[in-house]
């Protein structure tokens, strides 16, 4: 078996048993990057010397332990890895070197993982195609004329093309699940508060969740085992008991109630995706699950709600980029001009658009009509999910309304925003969700089917996802 075909568990256990060396694994993946990444452009930076040095250190350890021992992991470039660049895909952070490790990165290192490089993204994670990266777009490895999705398009395409065993992304409104669907891999957004955000460059603080991109549901569960947990450095992490998320994999799903959403009929969904959804219903039924129709009456209001809430939070979060302490330094006669010049030169158009929308929604005279109104609708959306989850233990719906689109195809911002209509409601409610590749479209792309579970019930989420994946 080739190294690329092994699971995370396989690699870690073989390296620990000295059947293969961490150095061989690292070299294999670096070679894959040399061969394929010039076309795909998944990585903004590959730490070749650091990777080989780290692999040799691991090989020299007497006591080899850790869930990710010798496993290469790609990190989206909006997370801090000490000593490496962290640009968030923006010119304003070009050349910025992270002074510390994000908590998730520290946890990966503690389990013997190897940070292979930093992956491309839409600037500050704002976008659904990686076309908003200030550096270059990433291509979809399944067909390079198409976008890989976004904003975690770099990590998704790296995993899909076999350039890294797993990757981390961040998901604010779908930025892990949507690129996972487009690249034919598994992408999970854990419950808000399950994973520390310390060291993640903030976008929408009440929505941002770090999640894994992997080839399989089992790999996803292993990654969650590594990154989950309370962190004193992020006061929004939940104090919940540690569990082994691989325990529920392979358990039968007979008798579980899975919700299908009545309102899906109101949306314009590509026929092959509806087809894959129906195939998934029948697979679940054949496995003994009970399919029950549930209603999310406020589903269609999720997108406008999100595009008020997320930019509002972003406008506050991105105020810190002023050119003084790090990043692009502008020019100006006085401090005001200096700030304006640094920010105007440093941010791209989509980021500016969102800062302006958010500032508008929070400004005097508009705050109640926009921000507060949206926060109340968000409460209604949460209520919809609460009542649905009183009847079922998971919900199934498509990850995206279409399979991948071509570069430049989405002309207006609103057109682009539409590709997240099924992931955004879940983010607003803070629920855990996973995208699993099921079926294909007529161009050969995989279709991503999304499962959602109750707050902090990733065990059920992974159990159903595993059953569907391995049917």
């Amino acid at each position, binding site marked *: 078996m080739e190294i690329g075909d092994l699971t995370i568990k396989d690699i870690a256990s073989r390296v620990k048993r000295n059947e293969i060396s961490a150095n061989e694994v690292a070299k294999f993946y670096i070679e894959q990057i040399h061969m394929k990444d010039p076309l795909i452009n998944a990585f903004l930076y590959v730490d070749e010397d650091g990777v080989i040095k780290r692999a040799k250190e691991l090989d020299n350890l007497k006591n080899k332990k850790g869930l990710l021992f010798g496993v290469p992991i790609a990190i989206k470039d909006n997370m801090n890895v000490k*000593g490496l660049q962290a640009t968030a895909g923006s010119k304003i952070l070009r050349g910025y*070197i*992270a*002074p*510390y490790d994000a908590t998730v990165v520290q946890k990966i290192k503690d389990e013997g993982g190897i940070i292979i490089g930093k992956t491309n993204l839409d600037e500050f994670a704002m976008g659904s195609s990686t076309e908003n990266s200030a550096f270059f777009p990433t291509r979809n490895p399944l067909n390079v004329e198409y976008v890989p999705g976004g904003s975690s398009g770099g990590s998704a395409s790296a995993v899909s093309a076999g350039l890294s065993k797993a990757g981390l992304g961040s998901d604010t409104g779908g930025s892990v699940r949507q690129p996972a669907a487009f690249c034919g891999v598994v992408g999970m957004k854990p*419950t*808000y*508060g399950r994973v520390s955000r310390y060291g993640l460059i903030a976008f929408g603080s*009440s929505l941002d969740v770090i999640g894994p991109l992997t080839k399989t549901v089992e790999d996803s569960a292993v990654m969650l085992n590594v990154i989950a947990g309370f962190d*004193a450095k992020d*006061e*929004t992490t*939940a*104090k919940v008991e540690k569990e082994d998320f691989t325990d529920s994999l392979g358990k039968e799903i007979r008798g579980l109630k899975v919700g299908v959403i009545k309102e899906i009929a109101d949306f314009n969904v590509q026929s092959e995706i509806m087809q894959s959804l129906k195939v998934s219903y029948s697979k679940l039924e054949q496995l003994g699950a009970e399919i029950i129709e549930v209603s999310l009456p*406020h589903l*269609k*209001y999720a997108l*406008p709600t999100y*595009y*008020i809430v997320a930019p509002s939070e972003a*406008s506050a979060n991105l*105020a810190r980029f*002023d050119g*003084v*302490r*790090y*990043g692009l330094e502008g020019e100006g*006669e*006085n*401090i005001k001009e*200096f700030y*304006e010049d640094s*920010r*105007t030169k440093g*941010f791209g*158009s989509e980021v*500016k*658009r969102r*800062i*302006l*929308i958010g*500032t*508008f929604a929070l*400004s005097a005279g508009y705050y109640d009509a*926009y921000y*507060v*109104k*949206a926060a*109340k609708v*968000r*409460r*209604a959306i*949460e209520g919809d999910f609460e009542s649905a989850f009183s009847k079922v233990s998971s919900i199934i719906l498509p990850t995206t309304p279409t399979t991948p689109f071509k570069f430049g195809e989405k002309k*207006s*911002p*609103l057109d682009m925003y539409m590709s997240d209509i099924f992931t955004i409601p879940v983010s*607003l409610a*803070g629920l855990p969700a996973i995208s699993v590749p099921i079926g294909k479209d007529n161009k050969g792309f995989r279709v991503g089917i999304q499962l959602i579970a109750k*707050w*902090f019930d990733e065990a059920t989420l992974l159990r159903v996802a595993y059953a569907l994946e391995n049917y």
Partner: protein
Amino acid sequence: MIDLEKIEALSALKLKGEEKEKIIKDLEEIIEYFEILKEVDTEGLEPLIYTKGIALSLREDKVTESLDIKYIERNRKLFGNNLFRVKRIIGE
């Protein structure tokens, strides 16, 4: 409808030329799209700021390690007593 000059000033941005025109058009379109939210009856609903299971907790107030200054220096040259140099703010 929106006072772009004011919003720009609050955002510390200064748009120019084509980008400015395009962004004004986009903003108008996007803000118009928000109108649909008026349909939702939100009477009696509390605004949702943080999602379920999140009890904001404060850590104990004790001294912990801070960032290594050499990494801060790599991102911006420091002047004087570990201070950042900025444009003059007072005395204009």
